């Protein structure tokens, strides 16, 4: 066992995770996935992220706003 419960390998970003921005926290944003997973996400690569928006996140970095 690897301890990785993801259905798809997170090593390759081609299955990103859609996450909703719960609140902004400095350079990071606290985001929640549909399965309830909550992560601190780097949002430096997407301009003007706001609470309530949905982001495509890979490896804790938001790549695009959905």
């Amino acid at each position: 066992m690897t301890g990785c419960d993801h259905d798809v390998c997170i090593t390759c970003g081609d299955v990103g995770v859609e996450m909703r921005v719960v609140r902004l926290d400095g350079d990071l944003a606290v985001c929640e996935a549909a399965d309830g997973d909550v992560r601190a996400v780097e949002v430096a690569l997407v301009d003007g992220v706001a609470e309530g928006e949905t982001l495509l996140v890979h490896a804790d970095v938001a790549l695009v706003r959905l």
Partner: protein
Amino acid sequence: MKFVDEFRDGELGRAVAAQILGAVEPGRHYKLMEVCGGHTHSIYRYGVDDLLPDNVELVHGPGCPVCVIPMGRVDDGIAIAREEGVIFTCFGDMLRVPGSNGTLLDAKAEGADVRMVYSPLDALRIARAEPEREVVFFAIGFETTAPSTALTLKRARAEGLGNFSCMCNHVTIVPPLRALLDSPDLRLDGFIGPGHVSTVVGARPFEFIPADYGRPVVIAGFEPLDLLQAIHMILVQLREGRREVENQYTRVVPYDGNPAALRAMAEVFALRPHFEWRGLGFISQSALRLSDAYADLDAERRFSVPGVRVADPKACQCGEVLKGVIKPWECKVFGTACTPEHAIGTCMVSPEGACAAYYNYGRFARDRVVA
């Protein structure tokens, strides 16, 4: 869920499948390559290939970064992990990738401090929490993961974290595609372009495929309807004599990608002159190292690594699978000596690997003659 349910609608799927049937020319065989391992996984998870006519064949490309990592790089990682005082961090699937003398998981069992992380930022947190230890992150992935590593290294630099470093194995998508197109082994009619890699690099880097090789490319999403629509778009291009890059995944992929991510990568990384890809050999300018400005955070400079090229196990045919020359079940050890629980080849390790996708979704028995 938004962008999910509507792209898994069975009725719509059957309608697009009928359109695909109408778009193929009878008597012509089509070989389309899905570049990305995420696509391979989705195709077999949802049975997309079962909806295609017999003369439309999907060939699985080299787009799973775990699958293309050569054994020598795993050995180098294990050598660093065994260094006194090192905490070696990597993604979960890397733990099980075999090197020439075991896996990172074996090294952990033997006493090395190897920890699974979900992102490089997790590794950075460990470095902050344990300043007396050297924390190394094993970076792997295409252009989707590289921005995460780049931002983490910029943070490490800004915070002055002297105990953090990175062993960089990031690869780039375009050079292996060119190598495949130059390969005499393979005749491909079109490409399903990678979805999330393109959120970073955009669609423009794929323009050489229609321009130089006369093959259509359609960038696609990961839901079953995304894939069916992309296949239809490729077939329509072929029927109409068009050869261009189209973007099926416009809800996510901007044509020019993410300029901020590309700038971060350009600052932190530089192209390696060449890099070994499992099954494909050495490909020029196909991988990233840390730039000179970030050389002090390069684990390969901080620690000694063997740097030895290791031949793949003779029984394993990952190379042929990665080039699409054989199907996974045609490998001699597929599903017998090589399974996800005990992988010999890398394609069986990651769920995105073609062999694991076939095995996990019950397609391992296909075309086998029953006595």
